[in-house]
């Protein structure tokens, strides 16, 4: 029997009344790729943070390589050969690759010998694992896929034998993700142990040897990947059967509700983020905009919803233009029937410090229903919030609770309930299910399709290709600020993936 690289025995961790991890037992075999899946808030990140020394377990034992280990800081973890690649990269953007790699391991005042040593070491690692990166390139000039490679190099440079990757493919194109998986397989072949935390079941099926499923802080099952199915894993994660694809009928598209013509938007640094974009959105259809994060989708949404200034072009809502000078009053657009679920619900769509009922009127607080003269009509607001809570199954069902105390999925439902219940003609949704658990995803998708079936026009921007494909009646792909292609809902993932990566259409057809 192969030796265990890591054993976790009876790990418990509570944050106040919340038990993030309960009696977790886990054994990870040396030289394998072990996946850990679970919904958001299932306790995956907490468990890995305990292993990496960010948190201390309340009770339980960690063994590394068969020996009991006490890990109090990340330095302890590194000394034991554990490396971590975080979901949000821990890189200094204006440093070179080399400088980032030696950060925290610099040994001499002038850095000369450290850099020389790092350079030769990096060359060795590149040869062994196929991790080509220019050591003198500046991080901010590298695409995200390469930045992630630098993170992996950092861990290997510190002698990591066990590599933990937290949601590594969230920011990658399908092609980049494939490349990452090849690297991981190569690392495995060289005897490294890899722990992959993700909520994407397909990745688990594609690359892992064994997989453990977490639910509500407990480890519910460990399976050999070859002997399980996506359906079984999803069921284990949620605790019931889930629809992985929403059912929907044919769309009956009506009149053009929103028309975007030659829209160009620059960001605060003057870089063109949206480049001459044109499309129409009709009533009764869902148009999905696919693309890797950072290709102008956010700016497009902000310009349409009147928050961001556009350089040129025009946007017509029900045949009348929207003020694109950035001085448009989003309140006025709401009155005209444009509802907007922003991508960043934590800072834009919600005020987390507010009570739930206060957020349920954000943006509609000028509405007479919620006011008595200059005063808020608290009774009306709370009873209105209660109705929405019941209708959208928001939990806990307490309109006086602070919004920060709701889970991601329920926070998203608060925003959706607010925007959808205003009965808008056009609904713009950014990342409808980011950070939302599987159960709530199903609910949100059904709601969006119900909107469509009522004849509303729905525009969805998402980096989740599965979501775009299962929701959309038409798919637009954005790359580098431009719409590089339009496809039907039956487009294959490979086809869309190539478009998202900016490969020209002719090449894609080959």
């Amino acid at each position, binding site marked *: 029997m192969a030796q265990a690289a890591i054993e976790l025995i009876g790990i418990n961790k*509570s*944050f*106040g*009344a*919340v*038990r*993030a991890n*309960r009696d977790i037992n886990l054994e990870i075999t040396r030289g394998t790729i072990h996946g850990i899946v679970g919904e958001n*808030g299932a*306790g995956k990140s*907490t468990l890995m943070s305990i292993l990496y020394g960010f948190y201390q377990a309340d009770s339980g034992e960690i063994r590394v390589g068969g020996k009991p280990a006490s890990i109090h800081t990340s330095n302890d973890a590194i000394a034991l050969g554990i490396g971590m690649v975080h979901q949000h990269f821990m890189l200094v953007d204006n440093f070179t690759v080399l400088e980032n790699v030696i950060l925290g391991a610099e040994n001499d005042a002038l850095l000369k010998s450290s850099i020389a040593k790092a350079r030769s070491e990096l060359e060795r690692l590149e040869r062994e694992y196929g991790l080509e990166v220019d050591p003198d390139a500046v991080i901010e000039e590298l695409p995200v896929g390469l930045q992630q490679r630098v993170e992996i190099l950092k861990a290997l440079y510190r002698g990591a034998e066990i590599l933990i990757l937290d949601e590594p493919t969230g920011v990658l194109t399908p092609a980049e993700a494939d490349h990452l998986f090849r690297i991981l397989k190569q690392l495995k072949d060289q005897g490294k142990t890899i722990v992959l935390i993700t909520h994407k079941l397909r990745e688990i099926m594609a690359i892992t040897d064994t997989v453990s499923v977490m639910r509500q802080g407990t480890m519910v099952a460990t399976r050999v990947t070859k002997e399980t199915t996506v359906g079984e894993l999803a069921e284990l994660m949620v605790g019931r059967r889930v629809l992985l694809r929403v059912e929907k009928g044919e769309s009956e598209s009506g009149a053009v509700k929103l028309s975007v013509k030659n829209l160009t938007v620059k960001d605060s640094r003057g870089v063109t983020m949206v480049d001459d974009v044109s499309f129409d959105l009709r009533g009764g259809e869902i148009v999905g905009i696919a693309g890797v994060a950072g290709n102008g989708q956010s700016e497009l949404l902000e310009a349409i*919803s009147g*928050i961001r200034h556009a350089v040129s072009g025009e946007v017509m809502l029900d045949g009348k233009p929207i003020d694109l000078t950035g001085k448009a*009053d*989003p*309140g*006025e657009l*709401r009155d005209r029937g444009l509802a*907007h679920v*922003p991508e*960043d619900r934590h*800072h*834009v*769509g*919600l*005020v*987390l*410090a*507010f009570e739930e009922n*206060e957020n349920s009127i*954000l*943006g509609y*607080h*000028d509405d007479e229903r919620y*006011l008595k003269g*200059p*005063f*808020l009509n*608290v009774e009306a607001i709370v009873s209105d919030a209660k109705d929405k809570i019941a209708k959208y199954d928001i939990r806990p069902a307490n309109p006086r609770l602070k919004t*920060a*105390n709701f889970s991601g999925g329920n926070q998203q439902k608060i925003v959706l309930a607010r925007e959808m219940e205003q009965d808008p003609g056009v609904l713009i949704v950014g990342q409808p299910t980011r950070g939302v658990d599987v159960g709530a995803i199903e609910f949100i998708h059904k709601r969006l399709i119900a909107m469509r079936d009522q004849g509303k026009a729905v525009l969805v921007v998402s980096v989740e290709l599965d979501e775009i494909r299962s929701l959309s009646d038409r798919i637009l792909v954005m790359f580098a600020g431009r719409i590089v292609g339009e496809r039907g809902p039956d487009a294959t993932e490979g086809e869309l993936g190539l478009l998202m990566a900016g490969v020209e259409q002719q090449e894609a057809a080959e």
Partner: protein
Amino acid sequence: MSTPYAKLPAWADYGLIPLINLSVAFIVAGLVVVLVGENPFRAAVILVEGAFGKGTGIAFTLFYATTFIFTGLSVAVAAHCGLFNIGSEGQAYIGGLGIALVCLPLDSILPWWVLFPLAIVASAAFGALWGFIPAYLQAKRGSHIVITTIMFNFIAASVMVYLLVGLLKPAGSQAPQTRNFVGGAELPKLNWVIELFGAKIRSAPLNICFLLALLMAFLVWLLIWRTRLGYEMRTYGHSPKAARYAGISETRIIITAMMISGALAGMMALNPVMGDQHNVAIDFVSGAGFVGIAVALMGRLHPIGIVLAAILFGMLYQGGAELSFEMPAITRDMIVIIQGLVILFAGALEHMFRPYIQAIFASFSPKSVGMEAVKGKGA
């Protein structure tokens, strides 16, 4: 998970933590008293007795508290809108100018109950104007409000010196202050209320501005938590992006909040000017605007907390004066040190002990104990 610490019950949040902070401040202050060779326990007794022991002491404590309630509310209103108004000092000073301009021509003509409302409007308007300019610069030009309000404190001081040694000074007088107001500019005292409880008062400046301060505390509560304007201010204060998304005008909300803040600071001048000194003198604000920052922080930006914190600071002012009188080794500067320590622990280091207390609460948390019990049954 998202919350690394347990949420504290409200009584711990608003009662226990301020109490611990305050105790630590007094322990450190006690050490300072020991260092100069005095008995800290006797000093504490003198301080508390000086503030609350006699009717006169109570009246003085509440008089000082009145001043701090106004400036504390001023800082809090701006803070709810995400603006750090350091300019309450200058706004109060200019508020005093407004009062002088109303009282000098009218004090011998009108009764107090006509003059007082006029003076309220004048002080609030002048304070609001002094808040408006930095607000406009922030909203339209992006000049940071902290910098501009500090500068406006200096400008206010210079303007007032110029006026008080020249235009506003009676001819022939050598004091840099206006002539003494008479008749209608002298506000009714409230000392009789304390005397109702049997305490005797020789002479103390407590006046109806105290009631005005309490009324303002209530109105601020109403504004912040019960009006649309307050809702918009809080939205902007928590997240300017969310405010933009919600269609709230940044310019309008910044200017409105700062003008309300300035008006409250300006009204502070009513208390010393019409209630006590009956003139506008150089430096009559004497730091009350800055104490307002500590009061607002210690009161957790809530009007009730601000009233309580203002009374605490009133106690430190009044009791401190008694203390330096009774214990000559403890000079006036020592009192300032003690006040500084309270500000340090209650204001600046407000969250120092929070993680420890949260950890203690977490280990006794009834909910997690409950979960243990449920699990035990299941096993």
